[in-house]
């Protein structure tokens, strides 16, 4: 305590002082006892001064006892706590950053139970992390605390080919599971663009989708059962291997809860038969409108492609530089369409799709001749985001949803926004299900440009909502879109959701500061000075 007081005297003088006292009072009230042992001066770089000072005190410390207990439990190799190690867990695939106070690497469910018990004892926030490829800051310890990395819990526990089921630990990499069952003619259908690195645990938390979501559904459609540890330390088994289990669908509730309900320690997933045949078509258009109208008509004709992706001209040029897939550099848009299923059906559907493309003035329609060509085309699509790094120091990928009939109007609007802010915006998206991913390029050294980027992104999302869509299709809300939730949910909706969270996570220790604009738990402390400042329009109270 004395140490803490010294630290307080040293760091906290001036404007943030009163706020600090208020914060400490709440900490005491909530029995948040972890004390400052590690100073993290970088925290002060992050945001408004007084606010970050509170953060430095309240969130940047790790009780020595807790560290000791964690090391005792997991072994010294499985606990990171030095600042130079923690700096590398500040980020994920998004533009957000925040430093945890320690990172732990469980190997078994029992380890996770132990970690949760200790976090509970010390009232430390607890954040799950897979590969850190997420795009909404889901795996970032917004308010410090313990990051639980599941990277070493990466065993495939069971493959039951006859029943098309696999039981895996959360750290198994998405494409590794598909590779492991490929010889059985099976695969794990959710295929986020990051599938070669992202973990199934992360997919479950974010309810990830991917290009083939259009036909195969999102992660929740492929999860049968979960083993989870609640913040109270309770171990639960939700769902079972049957396709429909009686009672409430708690598995469904858990999938997509972004780590705010519990830590998932085991996942039973459905494996999907690889289709007998796949045809991949590349349609090239001279105007964006032609491409978007094609998408609307394909579905109107009653065809459900396995995937229907659109890339605009700018994105194509960025990607082609990397994959050399033969994308034309002078076109306005391409559609990448997969039809799969029985051989005969695929032939018919492919012909039909080709016809629609031609009706809508496609300059050219190519059909991939073999698996190699198909993979190359898809490689172009799956690397579209990263390829933005070739042309710009930073980029911000948005994730919005619109009814697919509104595609032409929305893209025109994005073009206007791009011109208004003088920002380059690339468009790549799951056209079939109206899930947009505008990529806004910026240079993070230019503060004005960054502010414009956020403003432009907000305008795009606002337009999506107006058009009858939503603020996120698959990246999750995380700490990126919490403030946008009121755009689509009423206060009553949000309050109900938070009550649900309260059942599993009453103290708000799990992944605090995510999803909801106003977070319970230690997050509340941090929310206070923010509300005193310029209140965001989206925020209530």
């Amino acid at each position, binding site marked *: 305590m004395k140490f803490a007081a010294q630290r307080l005297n040293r760091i906290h003088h001036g404007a943030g002082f009163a706020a600090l006292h208020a914060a400490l009072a709440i900490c005491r009230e909530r029995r948040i006892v972890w004390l400052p042992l590690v100073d993290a001066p970088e925290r002060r770089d992050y945001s408004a*001064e007084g606010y970050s000072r509170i953060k430095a005190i309240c969130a940047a410390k790790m009780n020595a006892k807790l560290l000791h207990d964690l090391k005792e439990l997991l072994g010294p190799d499985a606990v990171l706590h030095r600042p130079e190690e923690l700096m590398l867990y500040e980020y994920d*695939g998004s533009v957000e950053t925040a430093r945890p106070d320690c990172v732990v690497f469980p190997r078994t469910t029992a380890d996770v139970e132990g970690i949760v018990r200790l976090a509970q004892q010390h009232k430390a926030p607890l954040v799950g992390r897979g590969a850190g490829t997420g795009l909404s800051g889901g795996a970032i310890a*917004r308010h410090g605390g313990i990051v639980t990395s599941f990277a070493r819990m990466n065993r495939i526990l069971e493959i039951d080919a006859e029943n098309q089921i696999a039981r895996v630990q959360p750290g198994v990499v998405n494409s590794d599971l598909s590779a492991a069952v490929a010889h059985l003619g099976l695969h794990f259908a959710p295929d986020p663009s990051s599938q070669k690195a992202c973990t199934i645990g992360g997919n479950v938390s974010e309810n990830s989708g991917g290009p083939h979501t259009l036909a195969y559904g999102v992660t929740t459609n492929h999860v049968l059962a979960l083993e989870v540890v609640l913040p109270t330390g309770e171990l639960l088994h939700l769902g079972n291997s049957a396709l429909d289990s009686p009672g409430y669908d708690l598995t469904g509730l858990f999938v997509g809860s972004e780590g705010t309900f519990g830590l998932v320690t085991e996942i039973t997933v459905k494996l999907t038969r690889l289709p007998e045949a796949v045809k991949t078509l590349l349609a090239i258009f001279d105007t964006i409108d032609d491409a978007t109208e094609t998408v609307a008509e394909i579905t109107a004709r009653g065809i459900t492609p396995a995937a229907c992706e659109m890339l605009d001209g700018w994105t194509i040029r960025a990607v082609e530089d990397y994959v050399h897939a033969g994308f034309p550099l002078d076109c306005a848009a391409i559609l990448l369409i997969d039809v799969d299923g029985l051989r005969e059906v695929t032939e018919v559907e492919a012909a039909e799709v080709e016809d629609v493309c031609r009706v809508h003035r496609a300059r050219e329609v190519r059909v991939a001749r073999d698996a190699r060509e198909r993979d190359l085309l898809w490689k172009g699509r799956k690397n579209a985001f990263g*390829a933005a790094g070739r042309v710009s120091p930073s980029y911000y990928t948005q994730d919005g949803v619109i009814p697919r009939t509104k595609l032409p109007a929305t893209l025109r609007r994005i073009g206007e926004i791009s011109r208004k802010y003088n920002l380059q915006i690339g468009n790549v998206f799951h056209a079939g299900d109206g899930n947009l991913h505008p990529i806004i390029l910026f240079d993070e050294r230019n503060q004005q440009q*960054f502010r414009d980027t956020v403003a432009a992104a907000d305008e795009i999302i606002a337009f999506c909502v107006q058009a009858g869509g939503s603020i996120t299709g698959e990246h999750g809300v995380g700490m990126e879109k919490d403030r946008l939730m009121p755009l689509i949910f009423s206060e009553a909706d949000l309050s109900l959701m938070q009550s649900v969270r309260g059942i599993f996570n009453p103290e708000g220790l799990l992944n605090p500061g995510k999803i909801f604009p106003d977070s319970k738990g230690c997050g509340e402390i941090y929310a206070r000075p923010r509300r005193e400042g310029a209140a965001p329009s989206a925020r209530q109270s």
Partner: protein
Amino acid sequence: MSSTSSEAHTDGGNAGRQTAPSAAQSKRSGFSGADKPEYADYSRCVHCGLCLNHCPTYRLWHEEADSPRGRIRQIALVDEGKLALAESFVEHIDRCLDCRACETVCPSGVEYGKLVEFARAQIETNYRRPIASRVIRDLVYRQLLPFPRRISIAARALRLYQRSGLAPLARRTGILRLLGLRERERLLPKIDSDFFFNELGRLYPAHTARRARVAFFAGCVALVTFSELNRATIRVLQANGCEVVVPESQRCCGALAAHAGVRDVARELARANIAAFTDGHFDAIVTNAAGCGSTLKEYAHFFPADDPNHARAQKFAATVRDVSEFLDDLGLVAPMRPVPLRVTYQDSCHLAHGQKVREAPRTLIRAVPGVELVEMPLADQCCGSAGVYNVTQTKASLELLALKMDSVRQTKAQAIVTANPGCILQLRAGSAIHGTGQEVLHVVELLDRALAPQGW
């Protein structure tokens, strides 16, 4: 690198972002001089994380600090003055294999190999290693490798040790274990009886009508440990219509020095080699070592763009070909006898990831009648050899080797074919340690076997 505020959104929209630049940014960079990682290079990384699962060290330990993304972040943090160029940084940069598997999967086109080599150059100039390490590094990189005659002397000494009965004695008495060298001794190359020095300066005529005139790059350690491989390479080239010149004044390519951050030595060697190969009117400069080839092709990295050597290096690099790449382009014409063998191919990192040559060696292997090529899982994951990695990071290297031998075992192959001397040594050790019994061959050794007039 996006080091933007975490709370910006919640801070009343965008207000929080304004305060992001701060004391930290005005801190001094931990890097100095010319050979340093540049913002333009490392900021290409958008930390998407797609590299993680392809990085051998991340797959071993699953820690960001030992992933490409984490290492790039550390480089950025040192440059921003937020992380000291000290033990932790050095440890994680040292642990990198420099296999560049991450470059293959990086959608943003980050030139990771360049970044890590520059980071190592910074460590070399700005960090004081323990005295023993300094002495050994100085000896190897500055006093030994650049000088063929010294290599020859050292090799004779080592050969004496290996042939005189000292080696079994040292093994049996446990003195190696005492010195902590037991594992390393197993990875030592077997010194040849007949070195590859006499061949330097000679010209080998094409066996058929001349289809190309090539210069052969012979390597440094290979002169005393892979002379047979070098001879086999020349034979295969001759048999396929190449006139082969082995320029006399060629030196070590500088790859090991460059990978270790000793760039001044590497740069000198680059100058010497560019001069040695300049005026021979060669269709190609051919090497059988993927590690050398990768560095030779990147000689321009050693010289700033305004240095006249830069252009010379680019011209030199444009003619460098790995022997697999060259033969595949040229097309095999020599008649071949069947070699009934089930083989698997291990991608050499600096061929697959460094030079992006994947298909050529496979095509050549398939061209040998009787050979059945069975792909192993994760063939393009590093075997742990990585230049001197198996000596400097022996434990990690052996763990990677164990994983590799597991993959090999699944193929039930009788031989492992690869494209780089370092990989051959490591895989031979793997075959011995794990008792899997495969012989290990270079692609050209397999071709040479098919050419050989009599059975082997």
